[in-house]
């Protein structure tokens, strides 16, 4: 669908001739046969970047869509108030990453840089954050950024029922009055208790700033928060704007020449939907695309043999685990849960399923997050110990149960089969339930399965945020039905203090308890892997696990 309505076309300044040129280049990338002409196309792409993605954005409104295509689009179309400083990845020299560590020598112990905000401060009691916005920043509709935009953005979260209520609840924001416009370029957030997440939430991809003037213009009585408009179009202060979105086929993004940080190198980004990973591999190998997203581990090995392809595999915030439902027997018994962990053949999984593109999950928060510790890790595969624990639990003869996995994720079936074989050795028989991808998350959220896979990533690099999501008894993401009042208390206490030492002690204790009580079958931390043309530079890893088109450039 090419947007023609209103003044959209004029704003995006894409002439018919230019649009035809881009489309021709996009088409040529997929129809040209093997041989030199396609190489010529690859070279002539210059400032056009083509991405083979599993799916195009289903919506451009992140409030209601967290799918892969959407988060890539949001990262390009919108900007946040703050961002982390970037540092070279310690293991992958070609990649950079956010510096999310605790820096006691820096303000608020964080390595932050201003984006839409040029200055910020937190009150001495830690209950108020004030942001001074950068003057002169224009949206893709030409409206200047003001404090009203930030206010409207957060009011929208409170007014809708999507991701917003979660994002506001993390900060204990319950009423619009907690967000105040103090001047044209000054906005403040008041929270009832000191929050270590006040600044981190302003970096979170889920909290971009909208152009309220345009959104209000497009709102209707029935749709006061411009949902319909933002579903298909964009009103933000990011570096790109959407030129075309044909769901299921492709999305085209154009760099904004008036972006306040300067126009990005890649003038045009074409995201083509290529559902099968094998086809994405083929396109990358032929040079028809610059990036092939989300391949299977063996495919990364295959594609890395091509001299014109580079692979960047960096430690990420992803983890894949099995929810051991603490409300279903026999997983209500800690010893059984521990036994199930001792029977997981992690080394085999790492070798055969992930081909090394993952690390052992030795903790209950991402290993790249501050305060992570693996000192409570004891679950190296040990079937004798597993048997002994089952004996102690009164299940010497073993038991039968089921493990549900997502049909849309090929690695889960392989892990399940390896685990099934391993469990047979300790007398546990599991039936494997392949759940269609469309209904898998519904099954997870019902919390009615004894064992079910889960792949997730807490986007905010904070131990409190992560632990609250998965282990607080009141969290909607606590799919293992894990309840420990002491853990609840500690998580809440850690989210009420900004003292780094106190937080470290608190979350160290939380990790000790959780690892000991094993509400999950801890499996692996999959890496974020980018398969790209070797002339493409600038890959930066974000804890939201998405691409930011503005980071990329091409080697001359």
């Amino acid at each position, binding site marked *: 669908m090419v947007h023609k309505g209103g003044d959209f076309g004029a704003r995006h300044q894409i002439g018919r001739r230019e649009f035809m040129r881009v489309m021709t280049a996009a088409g040529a990338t997929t129809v040209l046969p093997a041989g030199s002409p396609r190489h010529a196309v690859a070279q002539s792409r210059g400032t056009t970047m083509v991405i083979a993605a599993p799916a195009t954005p289903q919506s451009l409104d992140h409030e209601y869509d967290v799918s892969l295509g959407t988060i890539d689009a949001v990262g390009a179309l919108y900007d946040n108030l703050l961002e982390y400083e970037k540092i070279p990845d310690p293991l992958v020299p070609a990649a950079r990453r956010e510096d999310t560590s605790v820096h006691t020598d820096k303000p608020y112990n964080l390595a932050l840089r201003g984006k839409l905000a040029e200055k910020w401060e937190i009150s001495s009691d830690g209950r108020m954050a004030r942001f001074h916005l950068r003057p002169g920043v224009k949206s893709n509709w030409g409206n200047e950024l003001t404090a009203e935009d930030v206010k409207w953005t957060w009011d929208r979260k409170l007014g809708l029922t999507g991701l917003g209520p979660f994002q506001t609840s993390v900060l204990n924001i319950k009423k619009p009055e907690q967000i105040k416009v103090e001047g044209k370029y000054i906005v403040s957030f008041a929270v009832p208790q000191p929050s270590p997440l006040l600044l981190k939430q302003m970096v979170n991809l889920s909290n971009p700033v909208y152009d309220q003037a345009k959104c209000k213009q497009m709102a209707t009585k029935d749709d006061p928060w411009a949902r319909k408009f933002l579903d298909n179009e964009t009103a933000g202060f990011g570096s790109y704007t959407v030129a075309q979105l044909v769901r299921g086929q492709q999305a085209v993004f154009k760099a904004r020449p008036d972006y306040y940080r300067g126009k990005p190198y890649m003038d045009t980004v074409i995201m083509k939907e290529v559902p099968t990973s094998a086809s994405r591999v083929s396109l990358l190998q032929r040079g028809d695309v610059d990036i092939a997203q989300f391949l299977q581990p063996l495919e990364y090995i295959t594609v890395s043999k091509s001299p014109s392809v580079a692979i960047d595999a960096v430690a990420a915030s992803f983890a894949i685990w099995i929810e051991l439902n603490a409300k279903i027997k026999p997983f209500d018994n800690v010893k059984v849960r521990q036994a199930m962990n001792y029977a997981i053949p992690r080394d085999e999984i790492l070798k055969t399923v992930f081909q090394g593109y993952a690390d052992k999950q030795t903790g209950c928060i991402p290993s790249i997050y501050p305060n992570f510790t693996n000192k409570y890790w004891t679950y190296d595969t040990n079937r004798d110990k597993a048997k002994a624990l089952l004996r102690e639990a009164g299940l010497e003869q073993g038991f039968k149960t089921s493990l549900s996995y997502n049909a849309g994720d090929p690695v889960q079936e*392989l892990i399940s*089969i*390896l685990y099934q074989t391993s469990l047979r050795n300790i007398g546990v028989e599991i039936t494997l339930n392949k759940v*269609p991808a469309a209904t898998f998350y519904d099954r997870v959220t019902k919390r009615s399965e004894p064992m079910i896979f889960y792949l997730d990533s807490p986007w905010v690099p904070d131990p409190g945020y992560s632990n609250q999501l998965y282990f607080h008894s009141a969290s909607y993401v606590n799919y293992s039905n894990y309840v420990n009042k002491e853990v609840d208390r500690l998580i809440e206490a850690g989210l009420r203090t900004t003292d780094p030492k106190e937080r470290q002690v608190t979350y160290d204790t939380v990790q000790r308890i959780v690892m000991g009580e094993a509400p999950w079958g801890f499996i692996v931390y999959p890496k974020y892997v980018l398969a790209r043309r070797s002339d493409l530079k600038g890959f930066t890893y974000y804890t939201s696990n998405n691409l930011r088109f503005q980071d990329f450039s091409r080697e001359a």
Partner: protein
Amino acid sequence: MHPVKPAGRRPVGPHDSRAWFSTRRQPAPGLRYFIDVLRARPAFALGYAIITGVTLAAILAPMIAPYPPTTANSADYLQPPNWNHVLGTDATGMDVFSRILYAPRIDLTIAVVGTLVSAVVGTLIGALVGYFQTAGGIRALASDSVMRAADVLQAFPVFVFAIALVAIFGQSIVSIIFAIAFVNTPIYLRLMRQQVMSIRGMRFVDAAVVAGVSDFRIIRAHIIPNAIAPVLAQLSINVGWSILLTAALSFVGAGVRAPTPEWGSMIATGFQNVMTGQWWPSVMPGIALAVTVFGFALVGTSIEFLADPSSRRRLAERARTPKPNNALDTASA
């Protein structure tokens, strides 16, 4: 229509399958005749050999398979065909050859049971519908209703319909058997109805009616035996087709549970590795599936051939007249 002279005490129809299948009323073709047929049509022999081989593999799998079919072994994952694993191993290290040997236990069971259920149900309903189609009154109306219901069932794409049934009744072997039986039943219903309608007007049926034989006895004793030949020929073809449907359901994830050895699921699981050069986990079960379906197709053709009196007659004539090349007329095959 000119019914042939009934053999024995009971009247026999023009396409009397019992003439070949019965050993009492007509000289039996015998083993020698059967061997003559196979010599004349070696392709039929190949079909029987394939089906025999697959059946034996299913029965003897626990004795001849070198490895357990559902035990992962990460030390040997994705091994190409070698002396230890003649057809290689899959992504979890399971032996492809062993799994191929075990797979017919599932595939054949599902296909044969599903087909037999559909054949029995379809044949019985088809016989009743065909017999009462011209009876008038409520019975004719009921027959018409059944045929319209069959029209509706057959209007759905078979594969999509089967997926829907498995989705409704859950992912299990019984559900797949039910799905196969359900989608195949209208085929047998139509086939039988057509046969019965042609036999219904014959004199030997009229004679039975005049003699006061009940409708259901006429159907059981006189109609079905004379109309069954095309159904029997269809059986084998349908078994092959049902194996394909079972494999297709597994391929899209609606079939058997992993890691049950089943050709379709093996093809699906191994498919991901073809692109990265490990073709054997997917191609080997694919070949086994293709060969088996081919075997059932050949057997189906042979039954059709043998059930056709004119083909049998030509075969007998050729057997009496020695020729340098004993190939048969292929027009009827």
